[in-house]
């Protein structure tokens, strides 16, 4: 610190520590990317829980495959700096881009071929305020049917 101060008084302009700025920028960018990836993964999980039937749930899971995974991978690429690991992570991202839709299509096709009918038309989530009693009772009513 003392050395920095002495150096600062000698130079005319403002001393910008470019290394530190770069480090901070990279850390911010990568954590931003990883956090938005986590957001999409969480939204995908929430969608899988909330959607009404198999085919609509698949759409929500697709979000996890694409933006969730890709954003996290891009964030990790920024974390590692440029090295062989960058290329490996890029390869992982590329293969995810190719394989995840193939898997999704295989599952959807299998469900269709085995006779699962997609639920069509407008769907709205049930309104919580119209369900009487606490949510626990409503759940046990549905499950037990007593």
């Amino acid at each position, binding site marked *: 610190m003392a050395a920095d101060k002495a150096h600062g008084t000698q130079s005319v302009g403002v001393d910008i520590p470019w290394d530190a700025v770069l480090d901070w920028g990279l850390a911010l960018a990568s954590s931003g990317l990883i956090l938005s990836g986590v957001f*999409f993964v969480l939204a995908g999980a929430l969608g899988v829980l*909330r959607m009404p039937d198999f085919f*609509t749930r698949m759409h929500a899971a*697709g979000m996890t495959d694409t*933006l969730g995974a890709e954003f996290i991978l891009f964030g990790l690429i920024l974390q590692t700096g440029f090295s*062989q690991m960058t290329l490996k992570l890029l390869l992982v991202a590329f293969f995810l881009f190719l394989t995840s*839709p193939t898997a999704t*299509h295989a599952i959807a096709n299998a469900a269709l071929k085995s006779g699962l009918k997609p*639920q069509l038309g*407008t769907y709205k989530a049930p309104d919580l305020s119209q369900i009487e009693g606490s949510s626990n009772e409503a759940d046990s009513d549905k499950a037990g049917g007593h």
Partner: protein
Amino acid sequence: MVRFAVVLSIIMSLYWLTLSFYFEPLIMGFGVASVLFTVGLCYRMRILDAETVPYLHMPTTLAYFRWLFVEVVKANFAVVKAVLRPDMEISPTLLTVPTPQTSDIGKTMFANSITLTPGTVSMDIGEDGILVHALLSEMANADDFKEMGERSGWSVGEETSL
């Protein structure tokens, strides 16, 4: 045939180098041997053609993936909005999208792109086109798929109006 063998060898070598990153003679020898073995196997199985070795169109494919990524991001936001809305109003719809692509790999690229875009999943491929399941009815418009269809054909080297 020879052209595909050469291209496949180059791609496999680069791929192997990326994954291993060891430059000792013994390990490099293993790499060369496994590349030759794989290419020989492909030759014996008679699958050394444009479908197994689609790398000759790499530049256009990568350009297409860049365009597709932007579309994927846009569609993701639409789906996130639908999922997070308290009443979660969705309108699942089925539609058939015609496939203008001439080659099998072009059709595969198109169907995969539809699935990759959240909110639309390709369920079945038939003579008259791809059966698509869409999460929201406003995503189920066959005209909206035209651009993606032409671009995916173009990305694997087909002649299109683009």
